């Protein structure tokens, strides 16, 4: 998904002369930033589950 977004943004920047370089950069950055935030979701989910697991493990001390 991210690579597709990158390619689309780059293509837009290159194909349309009416789009200024700064605008093209900004559009690309916005698209990529959003895809980055989306791609962080699995990692955030993993961190959440790890935190939950720590709570469970802390409660179940085998002493």
């Amino acid at each position: 998904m991210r690579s597709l977004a990158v390619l689309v943004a780059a293509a837009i920047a290159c194909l349309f002369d009416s789009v200024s370089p700064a605008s093209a950069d900004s559009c690309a950055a916005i698209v990529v930033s959003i895809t980055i935030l989306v791609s962080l979701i699995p990692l955030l989910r993993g961190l959440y589950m790890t935190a939950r697991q720590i709570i469970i493990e802390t409660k179940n001390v085998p002493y």
Partner: protein
Amino acid sequence: MAPPDSGIANYDSMMDHGFKHSSTEATVDDSADDYNDYNHAKHGKYGSKIMESTRSLLHGVSGGATSGEPPSNEYVLNVAFISFVGFMGVQAFFALIANSESMLEDSEAMSVDALTYLFNMWAERIKNRPPTAEELLLPVAVREHRIELKRLYLELVPPLISVVTLICVTINALQQAYSTLFAGEGEEEEDVSAGLMLFFSGLNLVLDVVNVTCFARANQAYGLQKQTQQTRDNEAAGLMNASTRNHFQQHLEAAQLLIVEKDEELEEDDNHNHLSMLQGSDMALTDHTTHDGYLESWFGNVNLNMCSAWTVGYFFYFIFWVAAIVATTKECVDGVMVFSPFIFRFS
């Protein structure tokens, strides 16, 4: 805990079935026979049995090693960290010479990247550290609980730092992009040396390709260990990957050390108990390492340390592609370099 004799029988059974070494290691076996005889004389029947079992386990484990074996996570992170720090230093030096603010910002971004690799490498190193002699003397349940808890914390804290940093940088980038697009605040920065920037951009791309390739070779693309048919077959056959084998080998070496230290103080009956203890710890660690991603139960084979390192690298890798594609194409079409400080903030 199983009686000592049955434990020995189980060890023999493991040697006969799951951990039998290949014939290609006959030379290694022959050269180790003298060592085995020495152990027999020094440690008596059961001490020798432990050493023999340990050696056999190590042979069996290393029997799965091939020249095409993937590198360990620690190695991959080490390569990434060193290469990023080296590149960052050189780029910062030339950025100061060229008076390029965007390249300096790029170096700052790379320092965040390098720190992510460093934190996660440190976490991987601690996770793979063998248990100490004192830990081996703890009850198996307590020891395993401590190991699990330590691993969980190591998989939580370093990635959390990386993710928070990454989110802050991304939000900052979004704000600046929004300002450029809609508030008209963006003004193109005139970099002193666009050619130098392009040169370092090319080098950066090569660096990213090398690191992404390393991650892929370690079967850690996005931190997810590939579950190929081969790995499933290996697991079914009782073989382990490089990281797990390294962990297991370190554990067994610690066990050997403990035997040498304690054996002189132990009577033969104590050796029975000692053997049982080690068998218990071996089994517990085998269970632990075999289920080294017990996270499988909810998220597949995920190592969050590798996942966060990969995500950061992935991020810079693709941002860089934006800069490279846009800049190269624009230069060809318009004859104008269009690097903006915004994109180079991430590249």
